[in-house]
């Protein structure tokens, strides 16, 4: 179901996150893990919480990443929609039509691609664009990134990146907007370092 009423009673209980004491050690482990991750294939779910609207938009699909900077989001519900980013161009398949744009002409997509790739390769943790706090719960680490850029601050309050304690891999993101809306992306069934063909990132037949 694409739309459901926002119900705080069914929301997962918030985990007890505490600040990490040795942040540098955690950061090094996450970056080391990221450096050894050459590709990711994963299912994902996306929840867009419209707080004032009191609605949640749910979607799901498959996510592919191949280093250095190829990303493919394929939405299968509620609509079929594919977006491929490769650092230079963004290609979108919508209603069987494919359109490609120069990423320089679309700063929003350029920023999304940069954030995604830097989140996956760990570079975001060394970025001067954010002030970062590290937290941990029983099962997860979380890096909370506060943007330094004034333009970004007007839209995004902070970004939370969640890592599995078992392997330091990225298992989810939460983008908290200034408007109190937020987006949760969860990655499931992650397969790392599979041989993903370059053709997966080419939407033209």
């Amino acid at each position, binding site marked *: *179901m*694409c*739309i*459901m009423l926002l119900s705080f009673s069914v929301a997962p209980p918030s985990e007890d996150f505490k600040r990490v004491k040795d942040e540098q050690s955690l950061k090094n482990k996450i970056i080391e893990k990221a450096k050894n991750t050459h590709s990711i294939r994963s299912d994902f779910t*996306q929840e*867009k919480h*419209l707080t*004032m*609207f009191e*609605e949640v*938009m749910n*979607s799901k699909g498959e996510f592919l990443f191949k280093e250095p900077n190829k990303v493919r*989001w394929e*939405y299968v519900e*509620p*609509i079929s*929609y594919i*977006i491929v980013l490769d650092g230079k161009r963004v290609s979108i398949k*919508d209603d069987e039509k494919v359109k490609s744009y120069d990423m320089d002409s679309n700063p*929003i997509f350029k920023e*999304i691609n940069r954030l995604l790739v830097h989140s996956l390769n760990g570079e975001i943790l060394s970025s001067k664009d954010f002030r970062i706090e590290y937290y941990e719960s029983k099962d997860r680490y979380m890096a909370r990134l506060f943007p330094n850029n004034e333009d970004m601050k007007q839209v995004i309050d902070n970004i939370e990146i969640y890592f599995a304690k078992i392997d330091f891999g990225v298992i989810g993101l939460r*983008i908290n*907007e200034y*408007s109190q*809306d937020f*987006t949760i*992306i969860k990655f499931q069934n992650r397969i790392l370092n599979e041989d993903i063909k370059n053709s997966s990132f080419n939407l033209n037949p």
Partner: protein
Amino acid sequence: MKILRILLLILILSPLSLLAGQIDSSLVLENSSARVFPQERFRAVYKTKIDIKDKSFSGLLLVRENADSSFRIAFVTEVGMKIFEFEFFPRKKDAFHVVSILSYLDRGIILKTLRRDFESLFMGFTAFKKPKIKSLGKASFTQRYCYEGKRIYFVQGKQILSMTRSKFLSTKEEIHFTYGDNAFPQLINIHHLGVKLDIEMKLIKVNGSE
């Protein structure tokens, strides 16, 4: 004195002639509740594409009518980025509230046009502050209703088939509705003449069902 009599005659007769111009008041009353969306308090999702000047935005448009007849709409891209969120309050002085809008679109002419477009869709005839609706007569199976002299809706039974908005005898906007099995419009096409702003909407879900 003769001129005065003639003037008096004109003054007395003129209201009668105006009344006679409103063709069939029973039809007006019957159809004045015609709405683009047939039921009150609904929730719908439309796959939507908005072309503005040289930019194109696609995503999902959420529409909800509340118990107080107010409307709330939000346009969110497929990747979860909100383009805008508006509220409409019929019969109120401040009938339109911008909850949020992307800075690129936060310009007077664009906001005014979007507001007018969505008011044309989501505010039923009777939802406007002071409905002034008159029948413009029948043309084959279609009746035409004029709202405040600007919007002309083409109505068949209880369904609105299209709408045109004109200014100084020139058409400024056209909206076409295509219906499927249920009474909700499956396709809505909004086309502006003079302003490069077109909207295409395709129904994905209504009231949580397919």
